[in-house]
């Protein structure tokens, strides 16, 4: 059809404008109409679908050797006989990859890193009866020996995450309890237990033995504890923060004064150089070790008063030494990020509910926060964009405490609903990367020659 029209047009005289216009239109294809064009159809495929493709599906049972032979013969006489498909024996050269294959495949794989599946439900739920529903306490900790300690009323229980066995560490006398804080020493063996009667007990978890009792540091309950090697820092309801050297007889080596109300958040930075403390007086203090003095109370490095409610949730960033995240209580509801060297507030984000605890992911730039009313959820944030990545729900009351497993992958949360839940929120641990070669600039060693 197309050919016919082209024929007639080429026979025409070519001078008038109109004719030329017509001619050009004819010689082109009219694309707004569907004109079946047999030669352009993929008859190979059509044939395949009509014969081969359906053969197996329709009656697989009837396919016998004789039938197959017949079909083959039929196919040959009908269609296949008409053409012969040929290809060169010598294939074209395969493209040379300028980048080695492993690299080439690794390169695009990097940006499209498969999205980690974040389970939205808890992996395991344990009963935690008599858990004191008090925002200002710290009743859950996960030690480096993979044991979890939780204080339920007057009793401290140990739960071994390796074999899921439970044991009781100690039950405090009624008049001294309840337990107001627990904290594992870095060795994963010793555990500090803060009490309502202002005492702090040190226990050896391997044989459930009371090693010593620290007295005289506080006048009221000890709600927060933080270890820095052999220094145990305790924060009390009296607003005092005390550094106790657990090795020496007169254990009080340093006091920090700055809070006027209960100290509920207490965290040492990973380097052990800075201490962050948050109190019910809505103040966040950064203390620097270099400013410590043994005879007079230490002065703070920064006094940060941006929070408008109690500051309990504190978390030092594992990949940036001077970055601290802090969360405010019910009247504040924000997560704030601080440069602890300069005291600058880097970011503040209203989460919409009380922030009870904060944890950084050790493998990814992510932050997990636990909340109270209204959803009692755990929220996973991308840092620094603070895009919400996941909301983990399950708790029916405010999620007071969170603790991270030693491998950094699992998070335990304890809530006012008297349950302890485990979440696989931080993914699987990465395979240990080979340490980068310690051979930077050629003159790096000159620094040491003085």
């Amino acid at each position, binding site marked *: 059809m197309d050919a016919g029209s082209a024929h007639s047009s080429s026979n025409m005289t070519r001078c008038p404008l109109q004719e030329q216009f017509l001619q050009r239109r004819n010689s082109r294809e009219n694309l707004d109409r569907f004109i079946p064009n047999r030669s352009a159809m993929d008859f190979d*495929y059509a044939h395949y679908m009509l014969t081969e493709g359906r053969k197996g599906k329709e009656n697989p049972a009837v396919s016998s050797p004789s039938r197959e032979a017949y079909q083959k013969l039929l196919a040959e006489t009908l269609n296949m006989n008409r053409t012969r498909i040929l290809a*060169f024996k010598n294939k074209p*050269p395969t*493209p040379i*990859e300028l980048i080695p294959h492993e690299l080439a495949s690794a390169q695009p794989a990097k940006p499209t890193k498969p999205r980690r599946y974040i389970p939205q439900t808890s992996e395991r739920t344990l009963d935690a009866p008599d858990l004191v529903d008090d925002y200002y306490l710290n009743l859950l900790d996960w030690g480096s020996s993979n044991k979890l300690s939780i204080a339920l009323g007057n009793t401290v229980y140990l739960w071994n995450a390796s074999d899921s066995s439970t044991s009781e560490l100690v039950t405090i006398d009624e008049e001294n309890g309840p337990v107001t804080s627990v904290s594992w020493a870095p060795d994963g063996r010793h555990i500090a237990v803060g009490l309502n009667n202002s005492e702090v007990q040190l226990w050896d978890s391997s044989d459930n033995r009371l090693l010593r009792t620290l007295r005289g540091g506080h006048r009221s309950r000890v709600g927060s504890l933080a270890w820095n090697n052999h220094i145990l820092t305790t924060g009390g309801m009296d607003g005092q923060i005390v550094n106790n050297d657990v090795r020496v007889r007169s254990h009080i080596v340093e006091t920090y004064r700055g809070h006027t109300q209960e100290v509920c958040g207490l965290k040492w930075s990973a380097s052990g150089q800075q201490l962050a403390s948050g109190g019910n007086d809505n103040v966040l203090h950064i203390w620097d070790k270099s400013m410590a003095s043994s005879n007079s109370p230490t002065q703070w490095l920064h006094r940060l008063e941006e929070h408008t409610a109690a500051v309990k949730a504190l978390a030092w960033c594992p990949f940036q030494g001077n970055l601290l995240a802090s969360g405010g209580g019910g009247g504040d509801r924000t997560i704030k990020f601080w440069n602890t060297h300069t005291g600058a507030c880097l970011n503040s984000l209203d989460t919409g509910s009380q922030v009870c605890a904060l944890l950084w992911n050790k493998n990814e730039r992510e932050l997990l926060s636990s909340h109270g009313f209204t959803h009692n959820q755990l929220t996973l944030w991308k840092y620094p964009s603070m895009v919400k990545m996941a909301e983990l729900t399950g708790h029916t009351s405010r999620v007071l405490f969170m603790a991270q497993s030693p491998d950094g992958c699992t998070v335990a949360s304890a809530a006012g609903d008297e349950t302890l839940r485990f979440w696989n929120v931080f993914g699987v641990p990465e395979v240990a990367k080979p340490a980068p070669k310690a051979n930077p600039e050629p003159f790096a060693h000159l620094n040491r020659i003085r």
Partner: protein
Amino acid sequence: MASKTVAKDIITLRGSAAIVCEFFGYAANSILYNRGVYPEESFAKVKKYGLPLLLTQDEGVKSFIANLNAQLSEWLEAGKLQRVVLVIMSKATGEVLERWNFSIETDGEVVEKGVSREKSDKEIMREIQAIMRQIASSITYLPCLDEPCVFDVLAYTDKDVAVPFTWIESDPKLIANPQMVKLHSFDTKIHKVDTLVSYKNDEWDEQ
């Protein structure tokens, strides 16, 4: 003057075969470039059909296409070539990802009786130009070839063609459940070439 015009518009079987062959050469190069089968650096720019086109500088690919064209033109002149298919396959798995299908209809009368036809070079060139433009723009709708690929060329000939020494019979290398897009066609009045690209259905669209 008049004789010159006439000479220009007359097209013989041989001339038509040459045009079709040349077209295959440029089309194959253009596909290999645009689909990224060979690295971009191995191509050089030339002007053809009023378009900037790219030709491979890789000696291996060059000689493959040259050998192919030599054989194709022989078959075209004999009117025995029905179709040429350029197949792009995954290098790793051999899975066929794209089939560039060039169907050829030959005017039997020309082959048998040796008559010639009339069509101006310019018009043919314009038709080819349209196809070349479509090949270049095909990257906008074809799925990304994000793995190393290889290509092969299949020639569909009449059954009575003796298989040349350097050729072997092949399977059609079909794609199961393909997407098809028909491109423009061109016609030398002796050979009519229809272009169609079929490609593996991108599963992403279905979801």
